């Protein structure tokens, strides 16, 4: 757009801080890959890299939804438990199949849909309690973390569910051409999520409401409904993550995905999405999830004790947040 009147400010030039905020994650990812390749000869093997991506896929699927929740300046701590419950429900239905002579792809599809529906329902409850119950989402989803885990334990009787059939395990272990199915799912999901956020009206409202909720409401947008919808979507994707995990483990474990909220939020934060809402890019969440998996994988290859991995993961999140805050503050403006 042309600048007409005198005094109209020049478009602010992008200084190094903004560039660091925009591309830092890619540089860190690349640096990590280089260092690992030098330290461990096995690291750059295609099998190892594909493995990393497949291992990252469950957290990454869930993190796509959590990114949207965080863009709205809300949080979802319940995703790990919701994933476990969705996986258990799917497994429970699959387990019933053989006795009733139902083993086909249709039955598998139905079981998966049931898992996703459970995720959507619990997500919608999270959203409803947040916007209409007036409880901060931090507390609502902390409660849901406990409730969904309890429901999972009740449903499974505290025991794993096995015998889910070959068709179901192909979700995690099958390939389309040379590409593992989970990676195909990731690419499709993240493409859709990015298109949704950056090209659609609702996507714009997600960003806008995360920045200035009141302004969006005054513009006539039903922000409460939007939030409930996004929480439901995040629940659905948590359910999808749970289904993927169940397929990979070829069983539903009642304690599956415990503590995953940390990994998921770490992926989102590493990807540069602001915990204050309104800023971020979903594609970078995928990079964040890959980076987290790379870190664990690298520490494994280097024979670092597992306890250190926990410390590293937590430290990385805090470092990323401090880094982002320092850069935004130095740049000034209303960036947070």
């Amino acid at each position: 757009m042309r600048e007409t009147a005198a005094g109209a400010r020049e478009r602010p030039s992008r200084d190094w801080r903004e560039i660091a905020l925009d591309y830092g994650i890619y540089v860190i990812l690349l640096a990590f890959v280089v260092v690992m390749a030098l330290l461990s000869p096995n690291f750059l093997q295609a099998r190892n890299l594909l493995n990393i991506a497949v291992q990252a896929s469950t957290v990454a699927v869930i993190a796509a939804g959590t990114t949207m929740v965080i863009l709205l300046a809300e949080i979802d701590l319940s995703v790990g438990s919701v994933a476990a419950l969705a996986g258990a429900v799917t497994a429970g239905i699959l387990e019933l199949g053989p006795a009733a002579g139902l083993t086909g792809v249709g039955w598998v599809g139905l079981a998966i849909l049931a898992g996703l529906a459970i995720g959507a329902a619990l997500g919608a409850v999270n959203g409803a309690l947040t916007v209409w119950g007036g409880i901060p989402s931090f507390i609502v989803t902390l409660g849901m973390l406990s409730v969904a885990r309890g429901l999972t334990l009740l449903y499974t009787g505290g025991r794993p569910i096995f015998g889910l059939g070959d068709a179901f395990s192909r979700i995690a272990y099958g390939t389309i051409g040379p590409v593992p199915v989970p990676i195909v799912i990731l690419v499709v999901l993240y493409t859709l999520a990015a298109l949704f956020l950056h090209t659609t009206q609702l996507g714009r409202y997600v960003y806008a409401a995360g920045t200035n909720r009141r302004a969006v409401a005054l513009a006539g947008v039903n922000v409460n409904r939007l939030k409930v919808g996004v929480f439901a979507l995040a629940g659905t994707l948590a359910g999808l993550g749970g289904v993927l995990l169940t397929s990979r483990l070829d069983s539903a474990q009642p304690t599956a995905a415990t503590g995953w909220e940390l990994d998921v939020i770490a992926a989102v934060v590493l990807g540069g999405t602001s915990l204050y809402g309104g800023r971020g890019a979903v594609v970078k969440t995928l990079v964040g999830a890959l980076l987290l998996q790379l870190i664990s994988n690298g520490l494994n290859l280097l024979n670092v004790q597992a306890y250190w991995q926990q410390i590293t993961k937590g430290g990385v999140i805090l470092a990323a947040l401090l880094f982002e805050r320092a850069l935004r503050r130095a740049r000034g403006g209303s960036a947070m």
Partner: protein
Amino acid sequence: MPDPAIGPPSGAGEPPAAGTQPLLQMENIVKRFGGVLALDGVSLSVERGSVVGLVGDNGAGKSTLIKVVSGAHPPDGGTLRFDGARVRIASPRFAKEIGIETVYQDLALVDTIDAAGNIFLGREIVRFGAGPVKVLNKRRMQRSARELLGRLGLELPSSGTEVGMLSGGQRQSVAISRALYTRPKLVILDEPTSALAVTEARKVLELPRTLAAQGVSVIIISHTLQDVLDVTDRIVVLRKGRKVADLATRETSLEDLVTYIVGSERAKGAGYA
């Protein structure tokens, strides 16, 4: 401000049957927040093409009153007639639909999106859609926003620049453009100059008269009483949730206003009047 040329508003020009009635008539408006009576039976009318000033001390009820009109706080009691019909303004969306636009004191802009995004917030131009998923036509919004800002003679922020990076005057321009885009019948300006430098403020203060000349009614809230005296036809004074004066600006002095705002006894005691 040069001629905004926003065209004849749909309500002006053709004198309707209700043409002799005021555009907005509020009677006995009551609004409570918990136990606090924010508006205690306020009546107010705004003629077509006139500028009405709303003044009063902090907490007098000015903001609450305009929020009743703009749909942000539906009233608890009283009646409201707009453009000849009795209405219940239950939401900001409904207010916009019947032709009431508001420029809020804090501008209600979304800092992380650009000028066009803010101007079209809530009424985006879409390319196509399936159910609730509608694909934005960013280019057309960009073009329309540029035309609109240009026609209003307002400073143009670069496209794509987040409004959080703009100056106070530019941000105000964006907020005003958004309000005028739909050719409203009534524009509410809430403290339009409070965040502006003096030269920017003078420009913004030309807006009410320009709009009135085109038949658009304006309600303006300001703490700067001289500004209110300069640009209004009538001034309504609120105190503690009640209307204490409804004055023709021509016959009103600054001293009169101060007296009504603070209450006559206190004004005398403090040596205002």
